[in-house]
């Protein structure tokens, strides 16, 4: 790979995907630091994995099933108790649909 492991535009794109409103100095610094880390990660290319299956999780061969029984969740007032904003028995958020 080139010394430019990740471009500024790519970093901006990733910040959008990650829902992080980064300011300009942050984006610059991130471009440099992610670049250095990604260049280090290139070492993985040395390993021949053409016939190797990926490991997503160790020791969990199949998900265990449980009895299909109803389990109570937390009471509504407890769930809402730590939210920054609530209304009509729910979490309140800024409008996101154009009226």
């Amino acid at each position, binding site marked *: 790979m080139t010394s430019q492991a990740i471009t500024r535009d790519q970093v901006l794109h990733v910040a959008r995907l990650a*829902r992080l409103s980064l300011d300009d100095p942050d984006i610059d610094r991130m471009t440099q630091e992610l670049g250095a880390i990604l260049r280090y990660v290139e070492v*993985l290319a040395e390993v021949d994995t053409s016939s190797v299956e990926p490991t997503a999780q160790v020791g969990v061969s199949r998900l265990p099933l449980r009895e299909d029984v109803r389990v109570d969740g937390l009471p509504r007032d407890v769930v809402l108790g730590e939210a920054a904003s609530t209304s009509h028995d729910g979490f309140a958020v800024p409008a996101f649909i154009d009226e």
Partner: protein
Amino acid sequence: MTTMREIEAWSVTQIAERVASGDVSAEQVTDVFLGAAARRETALRAFLYLDRDRVIDQARAIDLARRAGRPCGPLCGVPVAVKDALCTRDIPTSCASRILHRAGRAWLPPYDATAVERLRGAGAVVFGKTNLDEFAMGSSTENSAFHPTHNPWALDRVPGGSSGGSAVAVAARMVPGALGSDTGGSIRQPAALTHTVGIKPTYGRVSRFGLVAFASSLDQVGPFANDVRGAARILEVIAGRDPRDATTADTPVGPIEGACGQDVRGMRVGIPDEYFGEGIDGDVARRVREAIDALRDAGCIIVPVSLPHTRFAIATYYVIATAEASSNLARFDGVRFGFRSTPERGDLTAMYGSTRAKGFGVEVRRRIMLGTYVLSAGYYEAYYLKAQRVRTLIRRDFEQAFRNVDVIVTPTSPTPAWKLGEKLDDPLAMYLADVFTLPASLAGVPAISLPAGFTSATAQRPMLPVGLQIIAPPFAESNLCRVAAAWEARNPARNALPPIVAEP
């Protein structure tokens, strides 16, 4: 009459036995440790939350129940500190992050983590919440949004991380035991840097219900203690199947503590060359070799083993762990709990972006970005899937080695504790500090770190703790504790106390 100093030096098991028999009350014990914390916490800053009244109330309740003839559990009256990544019902839980802070206080979880619930059930006193790197992302506890924690062996040095607060609370005798979490070394590395015992159990051994998730294919909850037996006892209490964590195994627990003190003659101990190469501190290598010699004298058979993919562990880990973290941390969006930032005239997307940019610290933002990138279209194959394939090879290294040996012995950390601030501006240098703990995490196998003595004092640094890591096959924590206890009994430095404790 038992003195304060004697009680401070007691192990988890000694306290449990003496409180259960009525030799001392749980209140007397907690009083001693609260006093120790009051004297030392200003210099060390191990805790994010510690409420004296709450601790005493728990101890009194235990004493009342005991006097009423009710049976007390295996941790009867034992103060146990809890890493602030574990949920504690109605007790502030912040994961050392601003994003779990709102209106001047940390989030109050509506439930206890399973590990915490089991501690309480076993008679332990939950002693407060300890400092960590924000969301457990770091190797020095400097990434806490609130304050760093200081190493009791040298106050200008890091305690390791991310469970640095729990390690220091135990090392400075402010508690005999604590809970931490280990994703890539976050229990073992701080244990090594502070002269304490820490166990990362097998993946699937301990429930993660109520542990704030970092990297779900790696995270494990585990104990710290001032001796191997104490750590083993806490592990036995918190281990076992939990319907609320589908990855917990049905494998029977124990006896783990029962393995401590068992003869180690004939046990096969593997030594991987890959852990003694370039970059390892000379004194660290010497102390570990001395421990290996002592195990040989105890009757262990020392065998060379090879773990050839060790050098790829850091790259593999930082792809997989950040990918999983970027997904796990999507839940912190300002809607249901914690911090919210709403830009003026901003819509929902602007609220997400602003909340997360202001709520997360710099290392957490960096890892979310890296994780999002390696999972993004066009890079998923090259980074994420590639790392998962190399993970298979790292896992196979261990499988092959364990065909021939019962445990593998290595240094826990290539260096002793470094100075506060030394690696803060170089994220990659910080990642490299985890080189010896990451492989066992990726393989999902259990590992312990325990004291292996100290580096020699020089003009550049005082004597600093060295950690010995022992790694075992899946669910063979009994092997870990058996070999660890054998070395502990022969370690001439086992009872050394840090200056802040030794000087009254």
